[in-house]
């Protein structure tokens, strides 16, 4: 898996999945839904986020519903990784299932909005270019590594089905 380098968007604790994928846009296209991603938290996020940027958040990022559109809206906008002190359990699984690296990052509070971070999801290494600080964090769990490296659950299922091991 490639190393990631991108600008940090910094969020607080308990960012919920309704905020990432509002119910009002459930019947809309992903383009439309992604335009409203996180608008209740930061109205400029969806407009200004650039492909390759990373999200840095506090505790319990992705608390709430099972809606996979929350993780999909982030990947749709080009978010390359989510680094949070902790994650809501379904969001965490959804993110990895879409090949979006989600890493627990206890030192999230050291990052300022706009800092450029270099992230190695497999090794579990986060570097803040501004401060030159380097953090060792838990990488992708071993039992999910092959799935995430394949690009997520769908590519992984294709590999498994081709081998007829399902």
């Amino acid at each position, binding site marked *: 898996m490639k190393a990631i380098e991108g600008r940090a968007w910094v969020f607080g604790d*308990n960012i*919920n999945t*309704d*905020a990432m994928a*509002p*119910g*009002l846009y*459930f*019947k809309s296209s992903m383009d439309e839904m992604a335009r409203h991603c996180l*608008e*209740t938290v930061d109205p400029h996020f969806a407009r200004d986020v650039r492909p390759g940027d990373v999200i840095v958040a506090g*505790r*319990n990022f992705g*608390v*709430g*519903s*099972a*809606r*996979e559109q929350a*993780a999909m809206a982030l990947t749709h906008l080009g978010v390359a990784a989510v680094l949070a002190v*902790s*994650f*809501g*359990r*379904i969001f965490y*699984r*959804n993110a990895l*299932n*879409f090949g979006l690296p989600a890493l627990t990052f206890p030192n999230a509070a050291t990052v300022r909005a706009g800092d450029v971070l270099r992230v190695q999801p497999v090794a579990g290494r986060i570097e803040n270019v501004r401060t030159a600080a380097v953090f060792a964090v838990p990488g992708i*769990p071993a*039992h999910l590594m092959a799935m995430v490296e394949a690009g*997520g*659950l*769908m590519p992984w*299922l*294709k590999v498994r*089905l081709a081998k007829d091991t*399902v």
Partner: protein
Amino acid sequence: MPLPYTLTQKILARAAGRPHVSPGEIVTCRVDLALLLDSGGPRRIWPRLKELGVGVWDPDRIVLCSDHFTPAVDAESAAILQLTREFARHFGIQRFFDMRGIGHVLLAEQGLLAPGMFAVGGDSHSSMGGAFGCFMAGFGAIEMTGVVVTGEIWIQVPETLRVNWSGRFARGVVAKDIALFLCRTLGMENGASVLEYGGETVRNMSIWERMVLTNMAAELGAETGLVEADEVTLAALRTAGRVPAADALDWRSDPDASYSAIHDFSATDLPPQIAAPDSPANSGPVGAYDTVRIDQAYIGACVGAKLSDLRMVAEVLKNRSVARGTRLLVAPASTQAMTEAAADGTLATITAAGAYILPTGCGACAALGAGVLAENEVCISSTNRNFRGRMGANSAQVYLASPYTVAASAVAGRVADPRELLT
């Protein structure tokens, strides 16, 4: 003789085909039952099955319910419901409930869950099923695609956190008040844990009230919630026309099982609880908010519009009416609840008080159906989430409370303590 185990360990060991499992271990479990809903079900899974060129692993282990987009209100929702019907037909899913109610409630009404079962659902409130002494947890549609293809899912064996309640509730205080109290007290981040509810207060609850506790294990951020099987569980299965298995009551934690923590609470002095915007954890005794004026009172959702909830509403509304300037909307959780409420007079009491009856389904709970809120409106709701924008406009404010408290507030036109009306 094996070590003592929690109920969760016993179920996961059985589903994983292992003699025993320990917290932290990653296991692959065979799925006994998978609940798919119209929201994250066929419309998201079918295109992926086509892409993979495969079908479903076992149509008889799938339960499919249309509830989030019912009834259709525009061409998009109509198309979603149509596709859900086609999926059921195409794959021969017999247990398809089309516009019959909210899936989590239907599982209970139909007696489709049983103690010891390992079940999954494509919705976070799938935890509700744990009231039947089974392990049932929620997952995203992408992961449910994997389940539908393989019949398996990985689980990291969670710790079990025991939550005991003792004592009797004051009149007008119910399971929902416990759930809101716990959101504040235990917080919304209990990941890697199963919440096992027990104690005298829980044993004395109906299956429907226990389901409120397990439903809101989702708000507590737990892997899931459950209640050990007992006579109440078996009676609920018999009412649904099922014959409980001979070993049903064996699905309990061993007496000296090891819990990550044990919490003991008393229900005796618990006042009705209310969660202020914008989080279920922002809760406290209802009295602190009694000056808050209400535009809309909403009785709805899997957690808050079952027959037991409608009866609470009717108890409060009997010989009373909804305040001028406030509207009370009621969306029964299932057609069965609606039928029984019509038969026993509950519904007549509610409509005579001036309530407006909405279609059965998820409705305004997640801003998908009738009853959504305008900018700056204030709503008190028997649902389970009040995140910003959850029920409509981003500036709308949602207070969560029990059906008793919602009904009392509808009568007062402001947040009100139901104990004052229930003497």
